[in-house]
């Protein structure tokens, strides 16, 4: 066995402290030094299914001081964390941001008689409805940011929400 300069226990404790310190600093940036509230929320699609989302809300966004909101969505293989940097920068500048997952979670076994098939566009509709229900969101100023490497297979018959600002990020040619 070779000579050890620093005991393994010390290295382990130092590494653990570094992890906590670095993650705290990262969290401090994410929360803008405590000026942002971050909630992990379930976006209800129907009575059986939901999608996960993360809501970034600046503290100054109140019912008497409503703020414009932006929905951020990335298609697979990316999840709600892919656009987190954009959401963090948006919320630092006073916007409300909601990043949503494509993955649809099931609460219970759906009843085939009553349930409708949930897809990305129903997630978008539900996320938009959820934002519009928040008292601190200015309903007339909603934005949408999408990040995808695939083509968007839109179904025209779907009842989609309208947005004042739409940004599509795609490496597609």
């Amino acid at each position, binding site marked *: 066995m070779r000579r050890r300069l620093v005991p393994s226990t010390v290295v382990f404790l130092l590494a653990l402290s570094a992890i906590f310190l670095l993650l705290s600093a990262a969290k401090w940036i*994410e929360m803008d030094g405590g000026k942002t509230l971050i909630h992990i929320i379930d976006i209800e699609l129907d009575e059986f299914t939901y999608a996960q989302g993360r809501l970034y809300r600046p503290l100054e966004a109140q019912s008497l001081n409503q703020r414009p909101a932006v929905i951020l969505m990335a298609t697979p293989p990316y999840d709600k964390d892919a656009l987190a940097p954009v959401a*963090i920068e948006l919320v630092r500048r006073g916007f409300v941001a909601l990043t949503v997952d494509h993955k649809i979670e099931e609460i219970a076994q759906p009843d085939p008689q009553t349930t409708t098939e949930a897809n990305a566009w129903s997630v978008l509709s539900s996320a938009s409805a959820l934002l519009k229900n928040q008292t601190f969101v200015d309903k007339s*100023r909603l934005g949408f940011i999408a990040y995808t490497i695939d083509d*968007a297979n839109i179904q025209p018959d779907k009842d989609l929400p309208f947005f*004042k600002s739409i940004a599509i990020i795609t490496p597609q040619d």
Partner: protein
Amino acid sequence: MWEDLTTALSDPKSESKVLILASGQHHKTSIAENNQFPTILSIRNFLAPHFLLPLHPKGIETILTFSQDNLQIPNDLPLWFNPAAQLVQIRAFFLLIAYFALLLAGASLCEIFTRRFPDSETNKNDESHAFMPVAGAILFLYLLLWTLSRVFMLEIRFIGPLLRPIQPQQLPALIGLLLIAVFLFWNSSRIFNSHRSAFHRRLQSILILLLPMLSFFVIEYLPYFVAHRSGWELFLSIVHPGQKMIMHESRLQIMLSTAFSGTLFIGSLLWIQRYLIFRTNKRFNSALFCGTILTWLIASRI
């Protein structure tokens, strides 16, 4: 396709603004011909892979300016609306260092467990005791990641996918992958087991970690000082001055991002392997530990 989506989402009563950040010029021509969109602000090449962020800072900057122009946050907000002043890159850097610290914590724990379960006196070269320390360290890493994800609610870009549950149908493929990964790390362990001087060993340790990262950072950032643009932008302007691509740009971007992530993963695991071998002199332990981590990383991205 994108034309359909933006049309469907645009408000027919009020004027919606549309921004498409795409790599090619296809959208520009098709949109100009159709002329069915209210407004197209810009189509730029801001999808270049950034080594710490999934989106290039200039892309974030464009989106921030676009959102501010169209959604107009109230006047009581700070007047310093500067889209270029971004902190997310520092955050990504912190998360990257945290990833290395996490690997180091796992390797230290593996070392502690290895000392707890020493080899029998009769057979010093028996490697059958390797499983327990490695399994203990991996289990601890998983619990630590789970706890951190709950405490900090953070996505750790390089290791976050580790927390995704593994499906039962993936198991046979994973066992095969584990065997291959352990074999590869077992082979590479010969490099570190050579009898060299202390100076050579330390130099080796530093170079293994720094060279893969440095090479990427030099390629991306050194051209700033020479040509006032990043390596990616310089590459595009030299190879494709007229936007005529010899290779699909999206494929090139995905390839470069994967190459960077892969180099970082392998480089960091080799560094940890070298650390374990230097401290415990157990080649199989180190190969098993690094092979399991690599399998975990790949499996979570399948």
